[in-house]
């Protein structure tokens, strides 16, 4: 279908791609895997010729015996959306918010074909139904904001396949979606490839997604394809050390030493949190959305407790309530025996710290690291005299050198920032750390390191973790006990291994079922033994 030959790309002075060669076969799924910055997306954008302005490309991209890189912009416009469709990672922002979904799907048809608007509308209706948005439930006059993330991604797919392109490029199409939605979208893509005879270039950081989807896999590292081949043999052999490292990191379980005691330090009893919704009537009480419905659990000293659930299930709201950032409408949260609320003693607040998901947005960019890490000291009223020494110690604990103190946060990578966030949480020697999707934005290799760090810190300081995540494999690796949350309620609770190996609630079963996994029989080499051929 399309063949990449020695494709190299530089943007400004940065070398982004180096001699990438890849054959995308017709009617097959080609997986492109790698960590962020490995050049996966840039490879896709090179095919689409949608690169940033300062880019310089060399090599060849062959389609029908001609080189795409030599085509004019006008020829490319005729190609994009027509013979090559593309969908992106962020369905929430990938659609124009001020145009209806019908118009947006129709547009692909109208710009490439001579269809009348009525004909285009008919095809758009058909295609939207094809991707699971039948008109009776999802009229073409809907706006993107009236749809969920998964539904929006379906609209994007409908737009991309409206003209039945020969190649569909899907750049992390499910990364922003919940695990059950991800499974549905992947199913849809699989069906489309089978029924429409389309090629799919699937770009993802998730080895398990590729394992379940692709016929052919290429592994990228630092702008180069380090290994490629048919999926199953490649996974079984894992010849290249980077492939192996990536695989090991993705299923990494840190060595943990149990520190859990029976001493409860945080109890949540029948907690209820309501949000007021926009009024629908002028008089009378505003309607409310109950985000947390009578949730009860206990966190023990030194314990690692997981809280899993899909987006919107109320897990972050619950976390914020535990931190005292949101009032409860009923029920109670007690930390160290004191009820959480406006009257919660400041000195005890030092005992609960938090690490959030976004390693980029959770720091003041104008402060130096020393001041960022020392910030929680204001809970103690005055900064202790030895604060610099303590900041240095906390940074050392998370594996960041003391010279970081005089630097600004933009000088650090995502993984380093998350370590600094953990240092900030550690500085007051808390007993509880709430980790709200703390490793979700990190690449697998960095994530493995941060998980190790968390395990080490727990063993050293006897910390209790409330580990909130949508990622089941991570929760399984790092927690003793797990709570499964759905629509504001805890539907299942128990020892982590027991819940994962024998889930009792249908929702937990569905979550575990939907999570992509590399087939167990492919993992023969896991303990360093090469398979006998």
């Amino acid at each position, binding site marked *: 279908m399309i063949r990449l030959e020695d494709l190299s790309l530089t943007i400004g002075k940065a070398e982004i791609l180096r001699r990438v060669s890849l054959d995308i076969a017709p009617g097959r799924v080609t997986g492109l895997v790698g960590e962020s910055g490995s050049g996966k997306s840039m490879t896709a954008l090179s095919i*689409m010729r*949608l690169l940033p302005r300062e880019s310089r490309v060399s090599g060849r991209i062959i389609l029908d015996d001609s080189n795409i890189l030599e085509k004019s*912009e*006008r020829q490319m*416009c*005729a*190609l*994009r*959306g*027509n013979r090559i*469709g*593309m969908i*992106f990672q*962020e369905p929430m*922002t*990938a*659609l*124009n*918010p*001020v*145009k209806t979904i019908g118009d947006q799907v129709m*547009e*692909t048809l109208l*710009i*490439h074909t001579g269809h009348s608007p009525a004909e285009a509308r008919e095809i758009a209706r058909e295609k939207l139904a094809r991707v699971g948005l039948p008109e009776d439930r999802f009229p073409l006059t809907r*706006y993107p*904001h009236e749809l969920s993330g998964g539904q929006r991604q379906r609209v*994007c797919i409908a*737009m*991309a396949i409206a003209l039945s392109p020969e190649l569909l490029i899907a750049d992390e199409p499910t990364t922003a979606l919940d695990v059950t939605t991800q499974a549905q979208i992947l199913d849809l893509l699989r069906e489309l490839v089978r029924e429409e005879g389309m090629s799919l270039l699937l770009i993802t950081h998730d080895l398990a997604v590729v394992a379940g989807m692709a016929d052919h896999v290429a592994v990228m590292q630092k702008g180069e394809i380090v290994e490629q081949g048919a999926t199953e043999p490649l996974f079984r052999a894992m010849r290249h050390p980077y492939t192996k490292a990536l695989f090991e990191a993705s299923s990494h379980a840190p060595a943990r030493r149990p520190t859990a005691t029976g001493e409860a330090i945080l109890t949540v009893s029948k907690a209820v949190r309501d949000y007021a919704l*926009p009024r629908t009537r002028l008089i009378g009480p505003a309607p409310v959305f109950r985000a947390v419905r009578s949730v009860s659990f206990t966190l023990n000293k030194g314990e690692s407790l997981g809280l899993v659930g899909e987006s919107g299930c109320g897990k972050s709201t619950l976390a914020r309530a535990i931190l005292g950032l949101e009032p409860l409408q009923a029920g109670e949260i007690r930390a160290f025996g004191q009820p959480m609320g406006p009257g919660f003693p400041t000195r005890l607040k030092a005992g609960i710290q938090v690490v959030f998901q976004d390693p980029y947005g959770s720091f003041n960019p104008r402060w130096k690291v020393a001041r960022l890490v020392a910030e929680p000291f204001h809970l103690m009223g005055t900064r202790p005299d030895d604060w610099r020494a303590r900041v240095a110690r906390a940074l050392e604990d998370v594996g960041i050198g003391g010279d970081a103190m005089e630097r600004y946060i933009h000088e650090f990578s995502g993984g380093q920032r998350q370590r600094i966030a953990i240092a900030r949480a550690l500085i007051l020697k808390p007993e509880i750390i709430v980790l709200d999707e703390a490793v979700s934005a990190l690449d697998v290799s960095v994530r493995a390191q941060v998980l190790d760090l968390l395990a080490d810190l727990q063993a050293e300081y006897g910390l209790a973790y409330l580990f909130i995540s949508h990622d089941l494999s991570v929760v399984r690796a790092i927690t003793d006990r797990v709570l499964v949350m759905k629509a504001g309620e805890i539907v299942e609770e128990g020892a982590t291994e027991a819940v994962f190996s024998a889930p009792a609630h249908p929702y937990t079963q569905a979550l575990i079922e939907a999570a992509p996994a590399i087939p167990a029989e492919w993992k023969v080499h896991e303990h360093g033994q090469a398979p006998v051929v």
Partner: protein
Amino acid sequence: MARYLLTRLLSLGLSLVAASLVIFAVIEVIPGDPASYMLGLNATPEAVAALRDELGLDGSLLSRYLGWVAGMVQGDFGQSYTYRVPVAELIGDRVVVSLPLALLALALSTAIAFPVGIVAAARRGRAADYAVMGATQLGIAVPNFWFAMLLVLVFAVRLHWFSAGGFPGWEAGVLAGLKALTLPAVALALPQASILARVMRSSLIETLGQDYIRTARAKGLSRRLATRRHALRNAMIPVLTIIGLQFSFLLAGAIIIENVFFLPGLGRLIFQAITQRDLVVVESVVMLLVFAVIVVNFAVDLAYAAVDPRLRRGGRR
């Protein structure tokens, strides 16, 4: 949509009531006696009493307020103390100058700013963009009265294309009226256009960086078509906000330009009324301007909803 309209209308009504209360309180209630203020320090007690009687200051606060509001609703703004004519007549004479001037200036400013802002955004970081940024910087920095005098020197004194000032009245013909308003409108529009072009540029640049523009390009739209179909409308919200503010400003804030060109506009009227302590006129003109601003804001709110479907249900972006 109906609910959105209703809430906006409700807020419009409440704003008007609140504004009228504040204006009434500031002028009639707070600093002692309006009559002795209007007449100055040397007024005789008899004169003050006569004026109090004329202004109806002896009634209760409530009845005075209600009377004032009821009068305005019927178009009766009272009698000017200095001019001895109904205020409504004074305002009417001035509005026919100020409103066309403001509209003309706004139309000019928009007509200049849109293409300029769009070109700058589309050619970001290139020569055209730098030229626009430099020119608009200058446009904002140059004081408009100085620019107005320059216009007079070139187009009136030297070239004789326009008169140097004054307003012949619309009785002299629409063309003559527009001709008299052209130079003042240009002088007013220049800084406004500069600001608006910059807002347009930065808003459009931000919008062009959005994911849905990339999606549109992946569908096969050219850069130009993607800008026109997907970016422009999304970039309009901040632009509309600025247009609303500019119109409100142009309506009453043209006082310096009105003075340079000897135009009998609202700005000069209120300036004269303040210097002559004609509180009746001040009160009414201020209320009228507040009314205009509130109505403009209402129109801008409606424009937001027309542009962005997410706002139609009373939500926020």
